């Protein structure tokens, strides 16, 4: 906690992130490369054949998207309750990334669905909840861009993020309930028990996606800080 507030000073964050960012990016690249390599080398699944390997791209995207929303909610909490200076920057920059990973998860899931279920889309619990998550992200981003005053936008968006975070488990529950009562056949989205030969690539790509998200997030926070500095400098310019 103290360490986090130590980085609250934008200048210190810029200095620190300039140092750790290259390593973070390198680690992300290494994890992704290793995961994808192991994924290619893994044998085809007895039931799904080679298409099961889309899992290595799809599942980590979904996990990262959900993690991103958790981080966004946490940053919003810090922004509202503790007025952490960088918290609203962190929340604002996390949203487009989260939305992107959600879209990626939806697309890869859709591509996986075609060989597995015979259809590109199905209204099962997981896909539907995930689609709603995308709308939560889009609404959040829309609110930021709709309000002109940055400080007001930050606080409004923080309230929205927290309301969304509280509602998210309820939404998931209701969508699960809905699917059960639709009388659909149980779709085994992750197929049979995950054998260790699949577990390793999955773990590595999950790690890679997470590190990639953190690296991209750091870049966006740095960019946002620089943008704000530029704006302040422009305002200070003698007319």
């Amino acid at each position: 906690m103290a360490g986090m507030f130590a980085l609250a000073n934008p200048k210190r964050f810029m200095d620190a992130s300039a140092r750790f960012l290259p390593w973070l990016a390198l680690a992300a690249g290494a994890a992704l490369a290793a995961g994808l390599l192991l994924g290619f080398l893994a044998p085809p699944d007895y039931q799904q054949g080679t298409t099961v390997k889309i899992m290595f791209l799809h599942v980590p995207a979904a996990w990262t998207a959900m993690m991103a929303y958790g981080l966004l909610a946490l940053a919003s909490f810090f922004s509202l309750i503790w007025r952490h200076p960088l918290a609203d920057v962190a929340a604002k920059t996390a949203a487009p990334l989260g939305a992107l990973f959600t879209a990626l998860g939806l697309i890869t899931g859709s591509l996986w669905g075609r060989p597995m279920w015979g259809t590109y889309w199905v209204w099962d619990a997981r896909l539907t909840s995930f689609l709603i998550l995308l709308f939560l992200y889009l609404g959040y981003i829309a609110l930021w861009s709709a309000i002109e005053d940055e400080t007001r936008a930050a606080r409004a968006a923080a309230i929205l993020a927290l309301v969304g975070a509280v509602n998210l488990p309820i939404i998931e529950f209701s969508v699960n309930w809905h699917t059960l009562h639709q009388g659909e056949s149980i779709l085994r989205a992750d197929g049979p028990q995950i054998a260790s030969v699949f577990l390793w690539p999955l773990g590595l790509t999950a790690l890679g996606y997470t590190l990639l998200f953190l690296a991209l997030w750091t870049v966006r926070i740095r960019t946002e800080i620089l943008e704000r500095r530029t704006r302040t400098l422009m305002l200070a310019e003698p007319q």
Partner: protein
Amino acid sequence: MNAALLLRDLRLATRAGGSAALALAFFAAVATLVPLGVGSDLKILARVAAGVLWVAAVLSVLLSLDRLFQADFDDGSLELLVLSPLSLETIAAVKIAANWLTTGLPLTLLSPLLGAMFGLPPAADATLALSLIIGTPSVSALGAIGAGLTLSIRRGGLILPLLVLPLLVPAVIFGAGAVQSGLDGLSSGALLFLGAFSLTATLLSPFAAAAAVRLNLAG
């Protein structure tokens, strides 16, 4: 003091051009449009009735929420209300109640007629009305949060529905689900879940809505 505010909002909403008549008309219009698009086979309409009427109800209520705080904000009366001994949370709660009484409740009263037009059997029709009366307060409540957040946005328009619709997913699922279960002859806890969701939303939303309004007034 609460009663005075409530009566004032009720009067504003029910006069000509107020949101009450508009919401009701919109609800009926959407419900009429669907058979034109989907076809007049009563068997199909009966299956989609619950979902269609629930979605139409949600959209109708959302339509009226845009002006919940905006109207008072524009003519300065919101700031006067804030100066009164009423807390902003109470003001929000009273406004949510007024909104429900003038949109959700009339919609619920009209719904059995529309349900019958969609070919719903009487039992399902009754369940539809029951689900709407239980669930529509949550639409007003969660919509009020959106109304508070979008208070200062000039080209407001469709951003309020975009913000609020994901939050209302449980209401639509449980509300329509209750009717569908009834049609399928199964009993489900849908109405209970709906009640829990609606109660929680109605109790907690005034705090979030007040926070949002406070934030926009301070600027």
